[in-house]
């Protein structure tokens, strides 16, 4: 008789992930509506307006929160995809690690864009 082994790369926190994916979705949807609203209100976005928008501290923080929400949301989503289609544990783990590294890099990149200017 064999005992089922604990899965190394399973979803251990299904409920928390389920909730996080929905909360982050609402955060991103709200940000999207605000960006669209700004663009429609001003009849398009030119460089001066765009630059002024991203000079605002509130907007920088809002954008950063959007990026964090996106990273968390995307992590849950791509992890589900790897879990559904990639069965060999080693390959799946590699893809999961690469996904996390990419998202971490994107967060770093976002910080650079938002606060790295002269």
């Amino acid at each position: 008789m064999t005992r089922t082994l604990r899965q190394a790369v399973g979803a251990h926190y299904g409920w928390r992930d389920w909730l996080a994916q929905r909360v982050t979705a609402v955060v991103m949807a709200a940000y999207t509506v605000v960006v669209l609203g700004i663009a429609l209100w001003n009849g398009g976005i030119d460089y001066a307006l765009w630059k002024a928008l991203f000079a605002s501290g509130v907007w920088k923080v809002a954008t950063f929160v959007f990026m964090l929400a996106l990273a968390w949301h995307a992590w849950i989503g791509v992890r589900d995809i790897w879990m559904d289609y990639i069965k060999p544990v080693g390959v799946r783990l590699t893809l999961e690690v690469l996904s996390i590294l990419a998202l971490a890099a994107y967060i770093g990149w976002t910080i650079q864009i938002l606060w790295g200017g002269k």
Partner: protein
Amino acid sequence: MSVPDNSPPKPRPMYLNLVAIRLPIAGIASIFHRVSGAVLFLFALPLLLLTVQASLASPESFAALKAALAHPLAKLVTIGFVWAYLHHFCAGIRYLLIDLHVGDDLAPAQRSGAAVIAVSLALTLIAGVRLW
């Protein structure tokens, strides 16, 4: 107290011929939700960061970016990403509503699945016409 059944699960009948399966409309909306999410993560996200970076760097890079995005091929890719975002957005709102038990019976769920596909395609068309 019942004894937990530790015997291995019986093999289930498998019917996964993707060509022969007729996916219901809500299933089509669902697989598009997954595909669009993957596209957004793999391709749109790094390109979006590149775009935002270039757009903020200087007036010259803003203008250069605008010129680059005016290329028909760039417009085509942009419209593809716009569809992916819109479909993911609309299908996501549908899931949020279904989680709140709004329209979670079979018939309204089928209608809303079709509506998600139609609305995101219509909005993509509007965005595409404005872009071109």
